[in-house]
């Protein structure tokens, strides 16, 4: 009976946790279980131990401590006014499940979040206690991601950072106005202050040149946040604006975008449409362009119309089609920055091209072996044996590169 009950709790509390998109287990300090009492390692690269049919990776045991919550955020499956089944784990149950799953190589570690019960510190204290027991009692050296309750006291934030690899506070929605209406108990100011505090602590934990003893550990895998896409009227421009400010202000490792998706027992106030997965995908691409490809958010937004990204083509291609005058780019002479702006070239293929061209001139078939999709690249480049001629400026180009019908993901069975 008791066993059955634990399984039911696991179902309820993982079902309640699945709307948080983050699953990263990478970017922490390197460590392993050699010489220790327990199990666990992190070696830089994250590992996805399984994939569910939604295409998402299962890397961590992602659960809530409890889905009881005193808040009433309209978009959330766990809001107080929802009639979903409720459950609550004991601290020890979470610890045992984490260790049991880890020893079977199902997971990289734990991602623990929680509904707010009683008050913020009470909730945070329980979460910190799970992490403390894993680290101290079990010498667990795997990955731990803790969700921070924004109002939690500084002492608990400090302890959370001591035990966890990553901390996160969710900004939830792109505009403060929508948080005020859809998540009335949440205070964006408090959320941002919590992120600011984490950043200051991350900064303080970086060992200085003159330090004889390193400062105490604080969340070596940094902090991240999540924004829900499609629950309010925010445009992509608003979303990217918010992301850029968040990256700059709090040095986030990642901003996760989560397409608002139908939830059980939903509120009347939100229309339940198909989750805007294509939009979510484009936002991730735009985010990538800002962080690794030297694009400004204004450039990306200008590639679309009315503050929305083009859903049919990726944002780099959309930008390039509106900036034909910058093309073609000569793959044998252009600098890295310009090559990164060619649609179809990724960071890796650009770096390979730069290496290869030190030894020989690049021809079209070289380019083909170094990038994925030659057809997409061809109109925008000059190679030793190729010039696109009028192709770059052809009005038909946009139609040629635009997929006729957005291919729907087909079920396999």
């Amino acid at each position, binding site marked *: 009976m008791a066993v059955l009950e634990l399984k039911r709790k696991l179902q309820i509390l993982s079902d309640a946790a699945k709307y948080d998109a983050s699953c990263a287990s990478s970017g922490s300090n390197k460590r392993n279980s050699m010489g220790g009492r327990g199990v666990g390692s992190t070696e830089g690269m994250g590992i*996805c131990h*399984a994939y569910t049919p939604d295409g998402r990776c299962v890397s961590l045991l992602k659960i809530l401590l409890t889905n009881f919550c005193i808040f009433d955020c309209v978009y959330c499956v766990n809001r107080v006014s929802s*009639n979903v089944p409720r459950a609550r784990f004991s601290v020890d149950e979470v610890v045992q499940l984490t260790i049991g799953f880890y020893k079977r*190589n199902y997971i990289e570690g734990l991602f623990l979040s929680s509904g707010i019960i009683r008050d913020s510190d009470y909730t945070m204290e329980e979460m910190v206690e799970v992490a403390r027991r894993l680290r101290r009692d079990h010498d667990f050296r795997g990955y731990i991601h803790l969700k921070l309750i924004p109002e939690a006291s500084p002492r608990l934030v400090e302890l959370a950072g001591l035990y966890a690899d990553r901390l996160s506070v969710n900004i939830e929605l792109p505009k403060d106005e929508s948080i*005020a209406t859809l998540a009335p108990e949440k205070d964006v*100011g408090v959320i*941002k202050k919590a992120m600011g505090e984490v950043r200051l602590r991350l900064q303080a934990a970086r060992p200085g040149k003159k330090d004889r003893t390193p400062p105490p550990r604080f969340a070596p895998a940094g902090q991240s946040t999540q924004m829900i896409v499609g629950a309010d009227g925010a445009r992509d421009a608003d979303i990217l604006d918010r992301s850029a400010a968040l990256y700059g*202000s709090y040095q986030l490792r990642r901003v996760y975008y989560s397409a608002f998706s139908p939830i059980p027992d939903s509120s009347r106030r939100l229309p339940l449409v198909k989750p805007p997965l294509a939009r979510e995908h484009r936002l991730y691409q735009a985010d990538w362009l800002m962080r690794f490809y030297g694009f400004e958010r204004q450039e990306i937004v200008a590639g679309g119309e009315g503050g929305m990204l083009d859903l049919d083509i990726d944002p780099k291609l959309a930008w390039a089609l509106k900036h034909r005058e910058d093309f073609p780019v000569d793959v044998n002479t252009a600098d890295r920055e310009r090559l990164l702006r060619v649609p179809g070239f990724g960071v890796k293929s650009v770096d390979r091209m730069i*290496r290869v061209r030190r030894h020989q001139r690049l021809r079209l*078939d070289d380019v083909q072996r170094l990038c994925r999709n030659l057809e997409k690249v061809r109109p925008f480049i000059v190679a030793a044996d190729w010039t696109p001629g009028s192709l770059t400026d052809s009005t038909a180009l946009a139609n040629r590169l635009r997929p006729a019908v957005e291919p729907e993901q087909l079920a396999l069975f």
Partner: protein
Amino acid sequence: MKTVRLAHETDFAGWRDGARALVNAGVLPGEARFGVGCNDNGLFDEPLSAVGGPAIVVPRRFLELAQEVVLHRTADRFDLLYRLLWRMRERPDLLHVDSDADVADALERARNVSRASHKMKAFVRFREVEDDAGEAYVSWFEPAHRVVEKTAPFFVRRFTTMRWSILTPDLSAIWDGERLVYAPGASRQDAPGDDRLEDFWRAYYASIFNPARLKARTMQGEMPKRYWRNLPEAVLIPSLIAQAGRRTEDMRASPASESRKQTARAVARPARASSPHEGKVLDDLAELRPALQGCRRCDLWRHATQGVAGEGPRRADLMLVGEQPGDQEDLAGQPFVGPAGKLLDRALQAAGVDRENAYVTNAVKHFKFEPRGKRRLHQSPDAGEIGACRWWYEQELALVKPKVVVALGATAARQVLGRPVSLMKERGSPIDLGGGVTALLSIHPSFALRTPGEAEKARVVALLEGDLRMAAKLVG
């Protein structure tokens, strides 16, 4: 045709010795073949005249690449490596040409091997067994390439304190808590058929799946079907996919239910008021900080972390006004705590002023910036923003009642005097503001930080110190 016989499938040393002999004998790639397994003639079908011979110098990158490629399951991997070795003698930089057909082929196979190793780390599933020595863990796994030896040390590092074995058709890796040993390949029947937690794992897998986001192809790209038969959770995949559409439709179609009484009561609590004090004249400095958090007088609140209130005694004779909070001030919620604050502290000390006795604030209370990657570039507030923030400055002025106000920089000067100011023309001499308040204009400490050259910087700092000294004298 010369054939080199290798001792086993991943016999890199055998390949290296054979390849060296072939190169030294001048055997063209097309005339040499490598095969695994013994034959009657020993090492070579046709014995070579010069077995061994001098060592061949190759770049380290080639050795690393070759050791990976050898683990690939394709039969011609050794021949490809020999062809590369042969061609590298003519063209030493060959390996840097990633777009060369042979190099690209070898790199692709190395990538496949690396991916197979990564997938082994991901998809091995242990099952618990009990023996005389206690708990131990056994896995049956079928790697895409021959990566057991490459990957086993990872499991040693991760599961050092467990006793475990990973059985595969090629080779088995066994860790007894102290030593890693390899045994011949095994079969599925050698591993246990179930584990007490697998049912929990499947429950988790099914619950964490969101049926409204079906993307089966993405899943299969990352978790190819070849691995499914050894993954306990994979049996659920067909039914999860089959039911996804109906589950989503049910969620969409079912009307929102009436919430229970106690939850409805909880919801009835009033929402957090955005700011109880905004818009009202403050009676006490302690109200300033909370009131600022609700300020919407201009748009700067939107991306800043918080409004930063002034700090200092409730009544002070000296008030210092800076421009706006910077990066660190925005995070900490306190004025002048970043690099400019440090410089100000030193200047105050040099001028004999105790910061504790002064009220320190900013002309504009929110940080204005332009995000640039992981940093924020400071931007000066414009006239509209300075004007919008005047409300707060005047309240501070009225409550603190200073005798002397030092405006640090042009923005502060504009706020304090209420008009555009040419700072360098008007600094250095007291300006009467009326009501017994004297203003003094000086430069902002960050101007000193930005000044290039040690001598020039020192001159600017001296200027600031002089002004602060004068302020102290005016206070009396």
